[in-house]
């Protein structure tokens, strides 16, 4: 097995007296997809945010390709999120005032690509995801599934090392959700990227290469999980 791409060691995070993460270890390699499951409020999103450098853990460390990233400055983490990571949320991550193609092109433009050049790959991605002809629509004019595919196109357009998804199909019906998830898993595999997906849905978890479960801020490695697999 190749060396892990993204690793975390003994992550702890408190909100006041509440413990969101109580010391979590984590590792993911390229081409792998990890489902993070667990009850509501158990700390899944917090883990995701720590891994992606959105928030800093109180204790512990996060490494990307062996480099500490949790200790980087906000500016450096920002640029990391822009260039190496991609995000997919339940809904609402698209900018309402931008047409679909510009939403997808935005990460490239933020990286310095002029708009005209950035729109090419953006349209390509959209076409790949079955959205040809809808490049001009605003998010408000797209169905939930379409909007989520636009968001996916945007996540993938920068060829990220790790894609983080937090209940990406939570707002979609089963069929659409399956379809979006299928495209997500397939393209991530093609890119050789890693995928970390938070989900409540056992069927989605089952499609990932590995599942971890969080309970009360701790990694749960009980028999139940083993038994279910």
């Amino acid at each position, binding site marked *: 097995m190749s060396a892990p791409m993204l690793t975390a060691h003994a992550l702890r995070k408190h909100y006041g007296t509440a413990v969101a993460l109580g010391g979590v270890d984590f590792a993911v390699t390229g081409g792998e997809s990890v489902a993070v499951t667990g009850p509501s409020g158990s700390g899944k999103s917090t883990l995701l945010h720590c891994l992606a450098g959105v928030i800093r853990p109180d204790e512990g460390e996060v490494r990307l390709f062996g480099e500490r990233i949790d200790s980087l400055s906000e500016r450096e983490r920002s640029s990391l999120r822009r260039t190496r990571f991609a995000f997919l949320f339940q809904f609402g*991550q698209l900018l*309402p*005032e931008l047409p679909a193609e510009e939403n997808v092109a935005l990460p490239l433009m933020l990286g310095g690509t002029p708009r005209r050049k950035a729109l090419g790959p953006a349209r390509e991605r959209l076409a790949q995801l079955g959205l040809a002809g809808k490049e001009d629509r605003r998010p408000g004019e797209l169905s939930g599934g379409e909007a989520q595919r636009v968001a996916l196109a*945007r996540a993938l357009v920068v060829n990220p090392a790790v894609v983080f998804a937090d209940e990406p199909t939570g707002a979609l019906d089963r069929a659409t959700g399956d379809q979006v998830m299928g495209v997500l898993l397939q393209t991530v595999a093609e890119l050789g990227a890693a995928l970390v997906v938070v989900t409540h849905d056992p069927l989605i978890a089952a499609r990932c290469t590995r599942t971890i479960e969080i309970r009360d801020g701790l990694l749960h490695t009980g028999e139940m999980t083993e038994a279910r697999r």
Partner: protein
Amino acid sequence: MTALAWRLTRLGGRRALLSTGLTAFAVAATALLLQFVVACNFAFVERADRTEWREPPAAEGGSAILASAIDYYGDDQITRIDLARLDDDAPAPPGLDAFPAPGEVWVSPALAELLEGVPDEDFLARYDGAIAGTVGAEALAHEGELLAVVGREADDPAMTTERSDGDMVSPRTIDGFSGGEASMVYGVYRPAAIVATVLMAVPVAVFGAAAARLTVARRDERLAALRLIGATPAQVVRLTLIETVLAAVAGTIAGTLLWMASTPLFARIPIDGGPWYVADLWGGAAWMPVVAAAVPLMVAVSAVVGLRGVVISPLGVARRVRRKGLGAIRLAVFAAVAVAFLTLSQLLGSGDMIFTAVLLVLFGAMIAALNLTGPWAVQQIGKILAGTARGPARMLAARRLLDDPKAAWRGVAGVALAGFIAGSIALVPMGQPELETTATETLSAVVDSGHAEELASRAEAALDGLAEVELHERTDRFDESETVAVVTATTPTGELEHVRSILTATLAGDPPQRATDQTILSNQIMASVRVGAIVVLAVVFATAALSAGISSIGSVLDRRKTYRLLHLSGTPQRVLDAARRQETLLPLAVIGGASVLAGMALNAPLIGSQGLQDASGALILGVTLAIGTAAVIGAGALSRPLLRATMNDVSPRPD
């Protein structure tokens, strides 16, 4: 319902409280400024009223004789009221304890101060009397007014000689001091105050109305959610109205109280050569509640208009469909009003009252129409930018302008309106001629043609070689067909006031003046116009800066979700700051510049362009440019910490 609205405000989180607070703050500023704008009109009335006693109606068989004159001392102009008692019934004039006896001179406090240390021969000798008391405030236009009331015998030449100058009152018998005419300068100031009112009130009102939209914008998502769960449109309107009006009422009360507390400060603004009595600013106190009621009402109406979209279509706001483009009709409205204004200003002949009133209303309408055209222009700019943007900041700015041109316009509206007004004001001539000092001065006084020779020789005798006296004839200043006799006296500059005193005492009637003395009044009016212009510009630009600041904070609150997500996906704040700068500065440069030019172009036929030739016009334009840009940039800087806090907010469900 009120309880629910109040809960929604309280529980809406810090952001909701912040936006409600901003509305209240903006309304407070609006109320303060509107109270000021309204009060200044009444203040002029108060001043004017206190000058009425100086020109009471003539009455057959009255109890006293009154005449007035304008005296000069150095670069100052002194109003003199001559009074002579005819019988014991003669009432005491306002501000005096008793009817002044012959030889008594009553002076205003400002004149008393001016005369301190001045030898009698240089001034008091003119009145052939001694200072007997101080004229009270109830007889003075303002505390800086220079006024002397001189008691004389009924047969004193000053009480019998006609005044040729129309600004003075020739001797007339009176039986009281009421029912008179106000000093003619207030015939100049009061209409000017009305013009200033229009110039200030319209942008202030526009600002107040925009402030209402601020709360509404913040609420629309939640209100749409309420609609989705079945609240009726009426309920939604009521909820928002209650919330907005509560904020507006609180703001209005605060603003009005602040106005009341700060009247002594506003009273320091010098107009017509002096500051105000604080009481004058309370002259329109009866109207204070009216203004205080009108402000929340205006805010409420604006809120209802802003709510229309939400009320009609809950989904529209919840899902944010593409908004309909703004029609070019907005431009057409502005063009129509402008053409009407231009046409009428051409027709306007000699200042017919109704014409002037209509013209003023049209000018106000033009400012309002500019506010209507602004969003359209913003949208056009957005279109152009969206087509040409290369980098992310420019693209974000362009899309934002296109997506919500009205909100983008609110950020620069104040400055653009201010630019329009500054453009108009820059045309007004406000320069002051330099007074030259010369080695000798020549005083001239119009005298009764019948006794011209005699008066001239009497003056010569009285002056006793101090000045060189001559007798001339010239056409009357006021009636070209008449000629008048003029006595002139030329004297070394050092002896000027001494000679003037002797001449005044000798030649009753029109006081002797230098040619330059005639400019004292017009300079004083010019100075007042300058002060007025500064006040108007200060109010307008304060409004502009406030509205830029508030709308900049508002726009961060509006788009907090967007900013959060952009941050999550690694967008540097630098890019967002650049986008925000561009979405205000680009429209500002285009529309602001256009409004300044429009203000000048539309008013040039009426006002002329003399102001542009003085330093004042260029100064106004330069300062306008600097303050306007600084206000908008400062507003952006002000909201930057909020932007940072918003971006870094990663709570699971930020509001």
